[in-house]
């Protein structure tokens, strides 16, 4: 489980203003100090303290990074695939598309599952956000956003609302009305405001709070009812493309990945960046936690997916192949965490054995870039959205002679 093994004072009197607040632990000239987030921001904005220049700050940060790399290297962890040598290899997986959802007029950019395991919300380039019952392929709700490129959408935990946003720099929440005549757009609530496009959004454990990431390089936590900014997260030096909440007992952290090739882990209460990983060679397009919360996977433009362990504080596996040239746009784990589904910009989905590092299946079928891949909440199927305007729900067909026949029959979608 995700036991927080590091020590950090997260709440108490600030060293600067002496007020009791959530604290950020930072280093000033190698001295650890505890400032509240307001004092840190003031200090950062006011420029540099006496005797400091941007160069000295950068040099200090570089030397800290180098020191941490040294520490990590000392641990001599055994590679994940070596430990996994003893377990059985997986056979070839035959995945079949069980549903094809057609209805978007343009590229599908994002999708999310509802907790009822069968409904999904999807958003596309033309500004449409559609809620489907993927099981029956019926469309249940449709909203037209006032902007194009709706890159982020999320289903609320209760199933009563959806959030979406994109080039409008905002995240809006739409309560789902069952009255067919009601115009959903009328009840829209603008929650988040960024200074650049919205790349990703997610509800926390309730309908009341939303976490967003943006092209302006920040992530932010918002209160839905009031639209108030509860916490902002600064630390990326380029666009943040994706975020994911940790499934931990304390439910206090999340990970984000961006165009600065970094994946950062944040504490939601203090706004502090508690861990950072930088081994990718290009933009990180998607981040997703391993089901136990002890690790997370990333998909990147450098055509690799990587697994990072939070306790060992390093990368533990790379999923790559010579024949995979195009970037991975989206990743997700199966329920047990044994399989990693990754959608790529060369129109394919590759399925990886997380432990052994090998690929167990490659799925063709989409006619354009795969932009999003998500496994359903109970792990029975996964849905992929693509720039070919469709969404496909696929499941593993245990192939035996008789089920092949069943496959042909049930494939009339």
């Amino acid at each position: 489980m995700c036991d927080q093994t590091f020590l950090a004072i997260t709440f108490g009197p600030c060293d600067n203003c002496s007020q009791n607040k959530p604290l950020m632990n930072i280093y000033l000239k190698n001295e650890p100090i505890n400032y509240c987030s307001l004092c840190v921001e003031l200090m950062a904005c006011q420029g540099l303290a006496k005797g400091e220049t941007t160069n000295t700050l950068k040099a200090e940060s570089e030397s800290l990074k180098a020191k941490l790399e040294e520490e990590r290297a000392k641990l001599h962890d055994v590679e994940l695939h070596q430990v996994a040598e003893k377990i059985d290899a997986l056979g070839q997986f035959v995945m079949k598309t069980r549903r094809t959802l057609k209805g978007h007029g343009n590229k599908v950019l994002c999708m999310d599952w509802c907790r009822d395991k069968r409904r999904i919300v999807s958003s596309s380039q033309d500004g449409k956000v559609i809620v489907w019952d993927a099981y029956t392929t019926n469309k249940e709700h449709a909203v037209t956003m006032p902007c194009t490129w709706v890159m982020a959408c999320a289903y609320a935990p209760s199933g009563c609302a959806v959030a979406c946003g994109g080039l409008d720099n905002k995240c809006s929440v739409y309560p789902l009305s069952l009255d067919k005549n009601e115009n959903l757009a009328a009840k829209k609530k603008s929650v988040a405001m960024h200074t650049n496009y919205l790349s990703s959004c997610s509800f926390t454990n309730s309908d009341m709070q939303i976490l967003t990431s943006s092209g302006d390089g920040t992530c932010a936590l918002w209160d839905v009812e009031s639209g108030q900014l509860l916490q902002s997260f600064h630390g990326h030096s380029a666009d943040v493309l994706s975020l994911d909440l940790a499934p931990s007992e304390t439910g206090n952290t999340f990970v984000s990945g961006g165009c600065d090739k970094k994946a950062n882990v944040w504490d939601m209460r203090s706004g502090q960046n508690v861990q950072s990983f930088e081994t990718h060679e290009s933009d990180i397009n998607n981040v997703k936690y391993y089901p136990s919360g002890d690790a997370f996977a990333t998909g990147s433009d450098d055509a690799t997916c990587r697994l990072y362990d939070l306790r060992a504080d390093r990368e533990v596996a790379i999923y790559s192949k010579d024949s995979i040239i195009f970037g991975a746009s989206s990743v997700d784990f199966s329920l047990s965490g044994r399989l990693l589904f990754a959608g790529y910009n060369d129109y394919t989905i590759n399925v990886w054995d997380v432990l052994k590092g090998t690929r167990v299946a490659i799925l063709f079928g989409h006619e354009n870039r795969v932009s999003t891949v998500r496994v359903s909440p109970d792990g029975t199927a996964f849905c992929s959205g693509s720039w070919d305007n469709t969404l496909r729900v696929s499941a593993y067909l245990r192939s035996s002679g008789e089920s092949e026949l069943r496959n042909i029959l049930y494939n009339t979608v």
Partner: protein
Amino acid sequence: MTINTLSQDGVQRQQMPCLTKMERMIISMQDPDMGIKLRNQRLLITVIPHAMTGLDIVEWLIKKCSISDEEALHVGQLFVKYGYIYPLKEPRNLILKADDSSYRFQTPYYWMSTRWPASELDYAIYLAKKNIRKQGELIEYEKECYNALHKRINHTWDFVVMQAREQLRASKQRRKGDRIVLECQEQAYWLVNRPPVSPEHYKLTTLTKNTIAMLTPWCSLKYIGVSNLNGSYVKYCEQYQPHDPIMQGCLPSNPWITDDIMFWNMNSETYMFIVALPTKLRVERWSFSFMELLNDQMGRKEFLTYLEKEFSAENLCFWQACEDVRHGETAKIPEKVDEVYKQFLAPGASRWVNIDSKTMEKTLEGLKRPHRFVLDDAQMHIYFLMKKDSYPRYLKSELYKNLLARAIVPQETKKSVFPFMRRQRHSSPSPALATQTAEDDGKAKYSNSNSGTASRL
């Protein structure tokens, strides 16, 4: 990938890292020893040197990357699409055929990474050359482009025509074979970079916006590294494998495959389906971790029943109330915190929870200025108390063991008697309806699950 083309320092970002990878592979394909065998190909009456067949390309890829032919064809197709390899016989048809059709490598001068975006001026010169060489050789969309360019860059038109003439004259002085090769290369380049407008091709958007960068002092925290924690991944995967429908299937059947939603009905969480008996797998899962027990509504209810017998139910209720404060509306925090204090923390409260004096002191101090996280310390204390004490005892209790014994193992769905009839796919009531009704009954608006990621349910 992002729409922003400039990095934080104002430097042009590398737009497509996949091109570098492709080029590396193309170079190894042309390796004299390990690459593809090139030979001369006959095209009508001329002999084109250094050509290969589509089958050669596919076979080389299969060998080099150890992949199937379907995948090799797919990868080879990408090379043709991006202009690194071009077909000789049907140049306008940019696809790879795994037979004896001829292909050639594009010269690096025309690679996408070196000459992107394609310059309008160059295109105008190319079209002018074609026009001068043979009237009527321009096809429909090329004619349109030519006219549009003529209008747009009219001021340079003399230069364009002059360049076109010069290039044609220079090419006449080359050997016929070389001339044809150069023409093919140029034509291939323009077919990739100035294709007819069709819905199949997607264009790279280039919007230039400046990103605002913020440099924060980077924090470093020393960690207690755990070596050999990789064993924990194996353990976790093995423990959850029976519960992973993609790995091991699910009973009675996967609804997506058989169109039978019994699996969902049996494991339902919504209050509308009162499930009589849970499945064995579900009950077993509660023993994996305390979080699993709390995440499942039924598990939580069972646990509450157990705690009531032990007279420590207030712990779970307190924990739930704290969750409500943490994840609820900001405006309601003060009143909620007040309620919690009255019920659980005040001296002599009806459901007083037992927390250590230090935490209690700190919490009471914090209550003077209530905020979202003011109850966090107390909540965590109670959570770990339940986890270390009540939870293990629950798992050993008669209540749990009885339920586990009574829990059902569903039968695998029998094959349909009429295999040619597809089962009806029934719709289900929308969760929005379920909770609307719940709201009317005065229940909480958000679901009681603890987990942040949907995939945990």
